[in-house]
């Protein structure tokens, strides 16, 4: 369970960004890749704890789950994985370890009230 330390990092980063925009943060938008090693549900509950007694208290965490995209050498293009237990092209079945997307753990936007 490292989601709490991740959540603390999110709160810290969001606060820094919010200070630059002079307002109160009502929501934090995050992209979480299926290979990021972070469980969205655990992150949501950790976020509430991490926000306590900070200017972000009461804000929402909005998580966009990002699927894994691999590069298929046979089709010569990106393919979305249907399962992280099976790294192969969803079209032709070629196994591929070449991950192009899905490791993200990224703060993408803030909703700010003036």
């Amino acid at each position, binding site marked *: *369970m*490292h989601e709490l*330390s*991740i959540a603390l*990092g*999110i709160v810290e*980063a969001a606060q820094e*960004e919010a200070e630059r*925009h002079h*307002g109160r943060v*009502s*929501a934090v938008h*995050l992209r979480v890749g299926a*290979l*990021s*090693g*972070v469980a969205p549900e655990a992150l949501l509950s950790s976020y509430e704890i991490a926000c306590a007694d900070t200017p972000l208290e009461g804000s929402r965490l909005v998580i966009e789950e990002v699927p894994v995209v691999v590069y298929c050498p046979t089709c010569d293009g990106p393919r979305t994985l249907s399962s*992280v*237990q*099976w*790294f*192969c092209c969803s079209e032709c079945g070629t*196994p*591929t*370890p070449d*991950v192009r997307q899905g490791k*993200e*753990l*990224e*703060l*993408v*936007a*803030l*909703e*700010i*009230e*003036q």
Partner: protein
Amino acid sequence: MSREPRLVEVRRNILKQNDVVARELRDRFGRAGVFVVSMVSSPGAGKTALLERTLALLHPRHRVAALVGDLATENDAARLARSGAPVRQITTGTTCHLEAAMIRTGLEGWAPDQLDFLFIENVGNLVCPASYDLGENLRFVLMSVTEGEDKPLKYPTIFNSADVAVITKVDLAEAVEFDWEAATRNIQAVRPGMEIVRLSSKTGAGLPQYVASLEARLAELRGAAV
């Protein structure tokens, strides 16, 4: 009077701090010419036993050192120090994984350019260490035959983050009716092309090949640096 909240776009990697330190470490290791291997596994898969054998086998011929992570106790460091190689314990307290900054602190006072190999034993955990780059050259994920063949499917993220799968305790494979074919298939499913090493720290089976491959990788690194 309240207005609609304004949506402000920001792009910020939450683990950037760790990634920055990991990159610094990787550069430093590269300049020093030291080959760095990290080990991850569930608790009890045999990381410390393998490290004990690894240090004992490499120590006479190479300059080796190890950093070992645990939530508490210095037991592993004491056990590993018997090899004669410098070993330091990183006690993480309540943190369930190692982070790059802990490696940087753990290295204080050591000169990486005086080393050939540095081993990093992560906290026994197949979940959290997956998110943290430690600046290593190679990440081993260990699974023991007693844990079952489906470990890779249960923890695909950590297997995918690793470079080599090490199947340990192979001396017990028959007793637990370990299905080699299924294990291989499951590893290849979550990381196609992944190298698989089979060994027993107890009997020594597979250790000569394993040590030879580490030495070959060091030679390759040194060759590439020249």
